[in-house]
């Protein structure tokens, strides 16, 4: 197969400040070299903030054209040097699909969104019509569907279709599966595999959830720590994906829990009694009942859009059921403070001027905060603005500042999304410490898609589904498998 992409001595540094005088420049990558052949399907993997997105953004030209950084070395696409070319010029050969499709859609109908890039590259209306038909067939989307009503997975497919319409044969996908359920992710991966195998598309996909992607890819590029102290990462290449072993480094075994309540008898903290909850004409919950007892650890599993976050919001009282009731001692306003709720996106919960202010804002005991600081490695960033941290660090801080309040009940919405194995270990360790403080008597309800973490996050599972029967309770250890049925 011919080489479609070649990277020669490529280096990247965000350390472009003028204040750097006596110290050496810090590099994210230094002198990377690799070639990608036509038809390759490559997984780019590595922990959060290691530079996967940066590498993809260097190839499509977003770095340094739209994001400031120092770049050295050369990139060749189809044998042509593109290093100095603009994003628009590179767009002719490289297509990019990013995270958060909801925030990239500008039209209210699927067809308009798909033809938009074709209009930008001056396609004729006839050609646009032909491509639109085939892209709709390929993705299973409907031309007239309203973009606002699409699920997360469908939105990602829509953005992929937009890119495919531009006929670039190199596709770069930056964590396209983030927040997608297993079924949607599988559908997208099958589509990409088909494009790679049958139509010779070259696909480079960055993803944390290796176990999901690995069966589809030919090669794996993994970002690993560099031995050079001035360089953060380097790439390791595996030409055969089957040789690659994904897994967790050193997660502790889940300790067997004996809660105080187990002996004393179950004490319900949330009794969900025959509730209905409707969004428009659609019932998310219909005559749904559930009981959470003190000290229990539940994991809510299920497809995107099936109502997992809504269920947590109902339990907290952020939204009210259409019918039925949720009985809980935490329904009272003064008791709400005893619930900690970690949102999926930390950007909503961080607002103080320094990391330390954020941690101590609602903290119960300074000792516990100090322990969290050590555990998460915040010692050297206490005076920094929380928003200046990397995405992974922000997520950990968002989690830490909620549990610093030592809540009696903890709701966690996708706490490990976007965290590398090390970050996940720290998070699970923090939960363990929190639990030890109350003889495992803390109630925790977690939403997760992350198969790495699910076994450690709870021992009872609630599986929600869009189809009937929409609900299953399970405390079998293999419950995780139900999710991908």
């Amino acid at each position: 197969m011919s080489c479609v992409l070649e990277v020669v001595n490529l280096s990247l540094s965000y350390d472009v400040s003028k204040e750097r005088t006596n110290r050496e420049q810090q590099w994210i990558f230094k002198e990377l070299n690799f070639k990608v052949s036509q038809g390759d399907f490559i997984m780019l993997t590595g922990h959060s903030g290691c530079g996967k997105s940066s590498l993809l953004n260097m190839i499509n030209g977003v770095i340094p054209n739209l994001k400031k950084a120092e770049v050295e070395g050369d990139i060749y696409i189809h044998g042509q040097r593109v290093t100095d070319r603009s994003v628009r010029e590179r767009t002719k050969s490289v297509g990019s699909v990013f995270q958060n499709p909801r925030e990239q859609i500008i039209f209210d109908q699927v067809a308009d969104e798909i033809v938009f890039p074709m209009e930008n590259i001056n396609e004729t209306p006839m050609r646009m019509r032909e491509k639109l038909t085939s892209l709709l067939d390929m993705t299973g989307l409907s031309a007239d569907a309203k973009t606002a009503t699409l699920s997360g997975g469908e939105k990602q497919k829509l953005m992929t279709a937009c890119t495919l319409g531009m006929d670039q044969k190199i596709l770069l996908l930056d964590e396209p599966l983030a927040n997608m359920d297993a079924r949607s992710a599988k559908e997208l991966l099958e589509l990409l595999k088909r494009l790679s195998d049958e139509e010779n598309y070259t696909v480079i996909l960055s993803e944390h959830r290796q176990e999901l992607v690995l069966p589809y890819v030919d090669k794996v590029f993994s970002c690993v720590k560099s031995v050079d102290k001035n360089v953060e990462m380097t790439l390791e290449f595996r030409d055969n994906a089957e040789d690659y072993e994904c897994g967790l480094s050193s997660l502790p075994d889940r300790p067997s829990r004996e809660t105080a309540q187990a002996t004393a008898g179950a004490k319900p903290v949330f009794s969900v009694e025959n509730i209905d909850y409707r969004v428009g004409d659609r019932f998310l919950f219909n005559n749904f009942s559930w009981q959470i007892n003190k000290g229990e650890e539940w994991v809510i599993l299920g497809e995107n859009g099936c109502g997992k976050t809504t269920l947590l919001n109902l339990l907290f009282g952020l939204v009210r059921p259409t019918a039925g009731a949720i009985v809980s001692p935490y329904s009272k306003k003064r008791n709400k403070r005893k619930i900690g709720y970690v949102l999926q996106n930390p950007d909503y919960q961080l607002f103080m001027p320094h990391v330390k202010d954020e941690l101590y804002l609602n903290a119960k005991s300074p000792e516990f905060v100090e322990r969290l600081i050590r555990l998460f490695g915040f010692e050297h960033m206490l005076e920094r603005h929380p928003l200046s941290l990397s995405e992974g660090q922000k997520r950990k801080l968002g989690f830490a500042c909620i549990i610093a309040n030592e809540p009696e009940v903890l709701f966690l919405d996708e706490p490990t999304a976007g965290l590398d194995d090390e970050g996940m270990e720290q998070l699970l360790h923090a939960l363990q410490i929190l639990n030890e403080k109350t003889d495992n008597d803390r109630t925790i309800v977690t939403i997760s898609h992350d198969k790495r973490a699910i076994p450690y996050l709870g021992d009872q599972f609630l599986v929600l589904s869009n189809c009937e029967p929409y609900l299953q309770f399970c405390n079998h250890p293999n419950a995780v498998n139900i999710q991908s049925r």
Partner: protein
Amino acid sequence: MCKRTRDIHPILSLVSSLLLFVAGLLFVKETWYWAYVATFLVLFLLFRYEKLILKLSPFILIFGLVMGGLTLINGSRQDALYAVYRVLALGLAGVLSMSIRPIHLVRSLNQLRVPRWISLGLLIVIRFIQIFREEIRRIRQAITLRGIRFLTTPSLWGRAFFIPLTVRMLSISEGLATSLETRGFSTDSEGSSFEIICFKRRDLVFSFLFLACLTFYGYLFLRGR
């Protein structure tokens, strides 16, 4: 290819809406104002705007009552009636302008050689009002979750609201800009158009009836001066 649609041409809708609003405000003190409103309602019904009229009616009704009520506090009953009439003028104009599908307006503007960055900006604003309504809801929820109350700690509440809102604005706009550029959009290229918005026979009939009605009431207005 010309788009087959039952909607009135977007530019025609916009101009008619403007005329209707201005005329509505001018005619507000005329005794025949109700006839004026009824005439255009019938015209809209002929052109199948019934769903939009039904959708707007509650808003116009509530808003009309509020405005009339507020005027009644300081003014006469007549002034209150005029306030209600002004809301009706707004409602009539709204039926036409709100029937415009943004994408059709954008394509019409492009056909008129309006720079694409203006039409794209318009689309982004319309779409992202909805997105940010949701963002604001989430931010307020996050504030509740951290136990911050406006009444007890207003400055902390302000921080917890505006800092995340600004961060979301920055992050969403950066992601969107990158996505647009990688989808080939640029401020200096014209691009092609998937569909051409044409002026059809239906638009011609609407223009004729609309202008005839407006001219008639304009004549009544001028005769009364």
